[in-house]
């Protein structure tokens, strides 16, 4: 493996509180040095004017393999990831079959290893077949490589089962990730409930359907002393609940998806199915609350909820379109908007996409520490470009940012010391 020298860039390593112009020396796939020194290397990258940070960690991705490979698979998802600067991602268990058996977990990890572009850490199901009834064999799944547990796509809706899941998981230090949705309240809804759904004449999903589930789970987490994480938090009420619970000292964390802090429900006007996701885009007030949560640390993590869907599932009426958008390739530029708007410093933003998720999931990545595996993202924070959905590496093109101006572009992605993405090209 060739040594790599990245010189002249602004190196930001949130895990070590590092932010300054420095050179990064990579030897044998690991970080050999970060500093002023310059050694000769087989490959040199001039990073002047660029940001050099740990490879991004996206803890919420749907890779669709096994079972729905026409939407995405580990290979296309890995390409999309590294094109977005992501070197580690967690895939959700709502595949076919579900990620509820050790064999399927191992299969996904093995596929990711063969492809060798991006680390894939599966999140296993909380309940068998995501049915919400019987707990999975969490210890065995964790041994097979699962890093957390979630029924994402579906909530663990039954209070009794959720309590047992939190109790059992926390006995072994495992994390439960909840897709917080009270299905009795959201019913057949397809967008946020309110003025927009009323104008469109479609069923809505009230924010209260997220809030009440988060509130219940916080109580259960307190009761049984567990670790609990709210996936894709989107409502003002839920952010406030998490803030209070964290202040109380409970082991509760939350992630926000870029679309929930960059867009509002107005995107669905005109029946735009590429703005339909679950939880739905909400009001400006909710969006501001999510931003505030990010900025005061209530929300420690940014994750995409990358949800590829074939155009057949989106080219239809709003109420029957599939939920979800792709996000891996837009996470960084969209999130940089928070820095431009003065809501977060760049190091704080990058912490939410590197060291924070790595720490939450005990992943051995997300840092440029000496001897750490050299997963690195290099990006130009000022580069402007226009997103063309047809140029996405993801198999699916369901993005609300098609033809929109983007600021910030990944120039290089390095995984384990190897350059896997360089100026728009994947090095498989």
């Amino acid at each position, binding site marked *: 493996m060739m040594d790599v020298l990245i010189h002249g860039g602004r190196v930001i390593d949130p895990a070590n509180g590092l932010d300054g112009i420095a050179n990064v020396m990579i030897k044998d796939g690991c970080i050999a040095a970060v500093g002023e020194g310059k050694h000769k290397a087989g490959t040199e990258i001039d990073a002047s004017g660029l940001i050099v940070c740990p490879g991004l960690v996206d803890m919420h991705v749907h890779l669709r393999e096994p079972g729905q490979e026409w939407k995405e698979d580990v290979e296309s998802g890995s390409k999309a990831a590294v094109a977005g600067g992501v070197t580690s991602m967690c895939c959700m268990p709502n595949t076919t079959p579900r990620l509820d058996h050790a064999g399927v977990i191992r299969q996904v990890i093995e596929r990711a290893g063969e492809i060798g572009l991006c680390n894939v850490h599966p999140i296993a199901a909380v309940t068998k077949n995501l049915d919400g009834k019987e707990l999975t064999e969490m210890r065995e799944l964790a041994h097979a490589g699962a890093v957390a547990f979630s029924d994402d796509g579906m909530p663990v809706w039954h209070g009794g089962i959720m309590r047992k899941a939190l109790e059992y998981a926390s006995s072994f230090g495992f994390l439960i990730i909840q897709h917080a949705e009270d299905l009795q309240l959201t*019913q*057949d809804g397809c967008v946020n*409930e*309110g*003025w927009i*759904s*009323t*104008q*469109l*004449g*479609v*069923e*809505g999903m*009230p924010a209260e359907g997220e809030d009440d589930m988060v509130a219940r789970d916080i109580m259960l987490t307190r009761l049984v002393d567990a670790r609990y994480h709210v996936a894709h938090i989107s409502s003002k009420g839920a952010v406030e609940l998490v803030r209070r619970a964290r202040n109380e000292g409970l082991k509760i964390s939350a992630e926000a998806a870029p679309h929930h802090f960059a867009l509002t429900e107005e995107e669905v006007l*005109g*029946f735009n199915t590429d703005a339909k996701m679950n939880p739905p885009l909400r009001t400006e007030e909710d969006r501001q609350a999510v931003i505030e949560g990010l900025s005061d640390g209530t929300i420690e993590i940014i994750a995409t909820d990358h949800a590829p869907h074939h155009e*057949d599932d989106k*080219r*239809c*009426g*709003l*109420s*029957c*379109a599939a939920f979800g958008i792709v996000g891996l390739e837009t996470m960084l530029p969209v999130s940089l908007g928070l820095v431009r708007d003065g809501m977060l410093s760049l190091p704080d933003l990058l912490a939410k996409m590197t060291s924070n998720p790595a720490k939450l999931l005990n992943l051995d990545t997300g840092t440029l520490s000496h001897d750490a595996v050299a997963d690195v993202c290099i990006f130009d924070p000022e580069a402007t470009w226009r997103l063309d959905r047809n140029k996405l590496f993801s198999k699916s093109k369901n993005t609300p940012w098609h033809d929109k101006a983007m600021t910030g572009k990944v120039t290089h992605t390095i995984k384990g010391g190897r350059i896997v993405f360089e100026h728009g090209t994947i090095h498989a």
Partner: protein
Amino acid sequence: MKHLFGIAQLSREQIEYLVNLGASFVELSRRSVKKAPTLRGKTIINLFFENSTRTRTSFELAGKRLSADVINISASTSATKKGESLLDTGETLAAMQPHVLVIRHAIAGTCEFLADYLPDTSIVNAGDGAHEHPTQILTDLLTLKQTWDSPQGKVITIVGDIAHSRVARSHLLAAQKLGYSVRVVAPKTLLPLAIERFGCEVYHDFDAAIPGSDVLYMLRMQTERMTSSCCFPSIREYHEAYGLNRRRLDMAGKDCVVMHPGPMNRGVEITSDVADSARSHILDQVECGVAVRMAVLTALCGGGQTEPVRRSRKREQAEAAMKAQGKLL
């Protein structure tokens, strides 16, 4: 005007134009020979994914009285529930080169969605889910034109299942443009959130909403669109609270009229004696419905002149692509 998706797209002037044009067609329908040559050579397809008697018949008669060739298709909603086959159906019919597709579908936004893919066909919304039903509102305005000079300043009180009603939404939009007021009357279970942002007055007590109303506009319970059965506890209780009976009609001013977009459920939202009373304009609405749809079809496909044969945009794109690849010279 290329399409009629909803009242939302129309200006005050366009609404008035269509209503006035409709007025001129009322007389035609009363003649013994009910035929004008306006749309000779035009093809209209009525594509109904939801059951309908009056709207479909009304569009059919409107087309036929204007000498267009009219085809009716009733597609079962269940077989075409997914958008893809809806799109296939639309593209298939569009390939037969009709001038107008009149569409009713249970999914809100169906017309806008299809129009993106059918560039050469005019689309008329005959009701899309709980979103819009523009020709019903034009019908109501034409009906009322026979009583009033102008709807400006009048009060239309719409009672019942507002949540699932496309008619209510279209009226709320028209009211803003034409300067009439709408009162909506229903329990909260039948009102969508934020309905007051349409600029209407919201009542839960029917009796309180009656004084000052110029129209009592009764809606049918759209049980087919209700996702839960608990929007109201029983028909008996609903009728008691929100049914229009003689007692309530007597509370209204003497010029107040009764309307209903149909179909009516006698004994539920309206009693027979009220429905059949002299103050009921329900059958006038049906008559005006034909005339107003004649106006809409005329506005969409104009006079009798024939246009050059249009080619589908898809075909042109395909040919352009083949040319680019050197497969077609």
